[in-house]
Each structure stands twice: as C-alpha cells, then as structure tokens.
C-alpha cells in the first residue's frame, strides 16, 4: 500500500500485466507512460519494455486505435492511451469495427484490447475542443464495447487490470481532472468488476448518481447534504455499458428521488439513461438532472465555471427534489 496518483495506479497495473505477457503492447502519442510517486520506483513503460512494444506515434489517433485493434485480432493484448484532443478522431474505428467485429464474424474475431480515452472538461480557459466531456455518451451507445469510467485511483487500478484481462474491447474513459487525486492504493494486482456501480454512501431520502470526473463534486455535495441532515445514497456508475440497472433500481425503490449529475451535455447525457432505466422499473419516483447545458464550453472562466455542474448546484437541486 502506498499513496498513488491515478496515473501511477494505472501504470502499475499495466506494468505488471506487460511483465507477464511478453506480447502485450502500448501505443501512445503525447503522454509518455511514465509516473512516479514518493517511495516507489518510477514507472516508465517505454524504457522498460522498449520501443518495439511501446511506441510514440505521429498525430494520428485513428491509427492508434486501429493499431491496437489489429494487434488484438492477431492475438496480442494491446492498450492505447489516446489524448483528449483525439478522442473522437478514432470514433468510427470503435463504433463500426471494435464494437461490431465480434458479432459480425459470429465470434471469430478476438479483441483483448483497451482503449484509454482521455477526456477533460475541468479546465477553465480552454474552449469547446479542449474542454469537452461529451464522449461518455458517444462511446456508451456503441454495442460490443464495455465502456467504463473509474473515478479514483483505486478503481482505476482494479478496473485497468480487469480491462486488460477481459477478452472484449474495453473503452476506459480517463477523466483528466482526476489526475490530482492521490490515495492509498494496494501494490499487488487486484481486479474490480467492469459491470458494477459502487454505492458510495447509503441513505433513504434521495439517490444521487454521478460518474468519472463529476464524482469529486458529487461527493462534496453529498457531505454537505448529509451535514444538513439529508440521508443521501450516492452511487458512482463506474461502468456506463453495461449499466448496473439493478443497483440503480434498488436504490430508487427505496428513496423515490433520483438526481443525476453529469459533466456531459444535457441532451442524452448518461443521466438520461439512468433516469429512463429507473423510470421503467420504479413507480411514483421524482427525477431531476444536473448536467452541462447543450452548449460547447466557452473559454472564459466566468462563463465556463458558471455552466459546469458543481457541488453547490447539486446541493440546490437535491434540496428542491427532496423538499
């Protein structure tokens, strides 16, 4: 156990798997697979495994995605870390190939690969293209992909191990705002399921559902609400596809109040799916969404910070819903 960042936790998971499997590869573009943490050795996949297995490419994220997909089809485990600027450059490759090849070949195609897609959304001062958080919806709608979005270093490590060992293509959404989180994470390999939401606090007044980069503010709001006496059941989705309907439905059956929180644009945000699933299964509940408006995030900090959902917004919406 040692204090580790999101990046260190993930690279520790990858390093272990790459040591076990001499065929496994890692493709990156800007972000070198390097991380350090006090008291632990620096991890540098490029120097440890060499440039035949770990490659820095040109600016061609569609190729990066196609490369790991092709590597997987040829029987090698493969992971790519795609920077947020390119996280839709590779969209068609995942939507029409990675997600469909297994079905279209009746099971012949094997794709033991992981697409790490970085997303931002947390940084004032960068306009639409450089502060988008919208890809959760795009990728979660694709069938044949498992789309997960861990929200802390521990989950990130456990879910990365599971993702690498999963024989299916996994989209690992990497909310960049979480890079500053540091916590104690076990040194040994462990797995965290790719299809289970995590109930972060239990309560009977309201269910609050968030995910990924939105979770720090959700947890902050939860604390404030609890201090104000509200019994909040807070759920971290962790996996967008498959979505853990059971955990969601069970919770709202109890609380009859559901508030979803998204950094993604309102229309068709993951919270819409959460509400729809619950509404199909629970009667007489009340619903509300907090989300980014249907507008590209402007650069100006004044505009952006007003628009981005935060703990105050969540507290306000929860109070209205319960009150």
């Amino acid at each position, binding site marked *: 156990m040692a204090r580790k960042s999101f990046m260190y936790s993930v690279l520790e998971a990858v390093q272990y798997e790459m040591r076990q499997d001499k065929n496994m590869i890692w493709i990156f573009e800007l972000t070198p697979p390097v991380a350090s943490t006090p008291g632990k050795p620096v991890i540098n996949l490029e120097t440890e495994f060499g440039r035949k297995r770990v490659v820095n*490419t*040109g600016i061609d994220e569609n190729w990066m995605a196609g*490369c790991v997909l092709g590597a997987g089809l*040829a*029987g090698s485990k493969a992971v790519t870390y795609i920077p947020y600027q390119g996280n839709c450059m590779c969209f*068609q*490759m995942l939507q029409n*190939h990675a997600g469909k090849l297994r*079905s279209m070949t*009746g099971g012949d195609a094997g794709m033991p690969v992981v697409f790490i897609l970085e997303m931002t959304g947390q940084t004032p001062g960068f306009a639409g293209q450089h502060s988008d958080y919208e890809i959760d919806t795009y990728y979660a709608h694709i069938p044949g992909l498992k789309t997960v979005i861990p929200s802390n270093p521990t989950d990130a490590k456990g879910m990365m191990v599971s993702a690498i060992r999963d024989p299916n293509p996994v989209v690992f959404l990497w909310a960049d705002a979480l890079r500053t989180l540091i916590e104690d994470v076990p040194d040994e390999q462990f797995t965290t399921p790719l299809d289970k939401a995590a109930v972060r606090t239990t309560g009977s007044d309201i269910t609050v559902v968030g995910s990924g980069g939105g979770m720090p503010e959700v947890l902050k709001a939860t604390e404030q609400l609890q201090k104000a006496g509200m019994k909040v059941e807070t759920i971290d989705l962790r996996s967008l596809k498959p979505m853990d309907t059971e955990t969601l439905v069970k919770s709202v059956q109890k609380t009859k109040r559901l508030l979803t929180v998204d950094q993604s644009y309102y229309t068709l945000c993951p919270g819409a799916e959460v509400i729809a699933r619950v509404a199909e299964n629970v009667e007489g509940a009340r619903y509300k969404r907090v989300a980014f408006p249907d507008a590209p995030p402007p650069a100006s900090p004044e505009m952006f910070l007003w628009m981005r959902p935060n703990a105050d917004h969540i507290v306000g919406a929860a109070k209205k819903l319960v009150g």
Partner: protein
Amino acid sequence: MGERDKHPSRTAETDRTSSTSRRTFLKGIAGAGAAISLGSKVAWANGEIGFWAKDLTAEQLIHMYTTIQRIRWYERTMVDKMLTEPNYRGYNHFYAGQEAVATGVSAALKNTGGIMEADLVYSTHRPSGHAIAKGVDVRKMAAEYDFRATGLNKGYGGEMHIADKSVGFMGADGMIGPGPVIATGSAFAIRARGSKQVVVNYGGDGTYATPHFHSTLNNATLLKLPFIYVLENNLYHQYAHYSYSTPMKDIATAAKTYGISGVVVDGQDVFQVYNAAKEAVERARAGEGPTLIEAKTYRYYNHWGAPGAKPGELGAFGYDPLAITSFRPEREVRAWMARDPVDISRNALISWKVLDRAKADAIEAAAKKEMIEAFAWADKQPMAKPEDGLKNVFVEGTVPPRQFG
C-alpha cells in the same frame, strides 16, 4: 480534373484459347451488347520482379490453377443460383475476373497455424477470392453467404464479414478505409512479438482516396512493419472510374513518397502476381518493411449482384447501365475478358508442360462439381435461431432483449 487524360484506357490483347468458364461467360453476356471489339495493348507491368514461379513444383503450379478455377466456379455457381432460384438469399460482390490476384498472393503465404503462426490476410467487401485462396472452407462460406446457422460465421456476417482466423483469414470488412489501418496493427503486434508472420491487406483502387491510405503507408513505413498492401486496381469504385479519385495513373507510385517499395503487376497473370508477392513477403519477413503492390485487374460483373437480377439490367451482371458519373464501356469489359486469368494460367501451364488439356479440363470439372455441391450443402443447412442474435456481442453471455419493451 485535367489529370484524367493521363489515364490511358485499359485494353487487352486477344487470346484465342478459352476455358469453358470464359466461353460460357461470353455467351452469358452476348445478349447484352455488340460484337467483341478488342484493342491491341497488353495490360502492362513494371518493377523488378523475379521469376520464381517457374521454379515452383508442378504441384504448386497446379494448385494455383486449381485455386483460380475454384474461385471462378464459386462465383459462377452463385450467379446461376441468383438467376434461377427466386428464394435464394445470398448476394455477392463478385470477384470473377480478379482471381489471379488472390491466388498469386496466397501462393506466397503461409496459410496454416492460426493467428500466432499463419500469415494474416485482411480482405474487403469483395472477399470470396481472397478467402478461397487463403484456404477457407467453401461449404461453410456458401452457407454463410445464405446466413445459415452452420455457416462460417453462424449467419451473423454474410458475404461482407466472412472470417476464419484458423487459416489466417482475418476477415472481410464492409467499410472502405479502416481495414488497412487495422491490418497494420496486426503487423505491429507481429513485429513486437518477434514472430515471422507477415500481413497482407487487400484494398481496391477506391481505397486510395481514403484518409486511411496515408495513415496506413506512413505508419507501416515509419515502424518498418511486415506489411503488404495489395491494391487491386479494377479501374472502378462502384460507378466511378478511378480517375475521379486518383490523380496518378499508377497508384503504386504513391509508395515513392514514403520511400518504400511500390510495384505494378499484371493482375491477370497469376505468376507475375506470385513473383511480386514473394519478393514482398521475403522483404517483410527479413524485417525490411512494407510493400505496395498494385495489381491491374478487372471485375467482370457489376459492382454487386443479388437474387432477382436479370442480365442486362441494373443490379445484374456485366454492365452498369444506370451508372451516372462514369460507366464501364462494353468494349472495355470485353477486352478485359479476353485476358482471362483462367485462360492465362491454363495456357501457361500447358505450354510449360505442367498440364495437358485433358488434365486442365478435369481440374475445372472438379472445381465446378465441388462448388455445386458446396452450395447444395449450404441449402440444406439450418437457419439461425432468432434469439442467438443476442449472443456474440461479448465473448461471454447474451445481452438482454429490448425490442419487446
């Protein structure tokens, strides 16, 4: 589009002997157009291609001829079904006319040992020839083309998605562009794990204009991948001549930009294709990087054929009467048919005394019989179970039905 006139019209030399397959072809289209009019220029080739084909064993040479005939008769048998059986459901992007390309390439590859040992082939929306040449079971293929539960891919894929990794046939792909990119990924994995495999990607002239073309060759070059791009230039992408999307006459010249080897071959001559492929394979296996092979070839049929087609009408075989932007002149179709890959290989082997006429005829008869039986077998196969549509989304389990509410 002043570049268009750099493209000479492709005509071909008369060839006086015909196989049964070609003779019946010509008969088949006779009603649809005027008398055969042939030019005098051969389809050409350049590059420094060796002549290993002549050194192959008789068995290997006969295998090539047999493969060409098997592909041809797979197509012919299916055509006949489409024209005569109203309940038949399969469709096809016919490969007839292009058989020498896949046959010559696969003859230079290792086709056994699965994904960790075989050479890997990525195919296109026009996969039948690539698959048969790579060694895919034709009965299962025929069943897949008719969406049967016991088809090669259990009825999930149909023609455009046949795949069989056990022989290194990585699959057809219905999209134009991404396939070659994915194929370089397999080549990357091979280089990383140090195995001796090579990866072949087939693509049409239509793939040149895709952004993926640059991506593929640039990354294959930079990483010196064991990768061969076999570009089958059959002059058309759907209903447009390739000059609408390609500024140069020979697409292989694009290789020069990357500093890799590019070669143009006569795609109707299986031995020339084999020679070019063998050189490229040896280079790739030796770690010397990728090759772009452009095979000049021609598809005899329309872009696509489906049951209910009638000769001479849209969707049928031979011509593209409704094509808008550009279309294939009948003269051109007939000129290419006169340089039939079946005839060229047959005549060569007879002149090399590897085969005599009787043996060649017997091989053709056997191919025909095999394919008729394959499609007959396919016809008797069970249909897919509806609920199985929820399988094979992931390796494990099924997804929930959602269509009932």
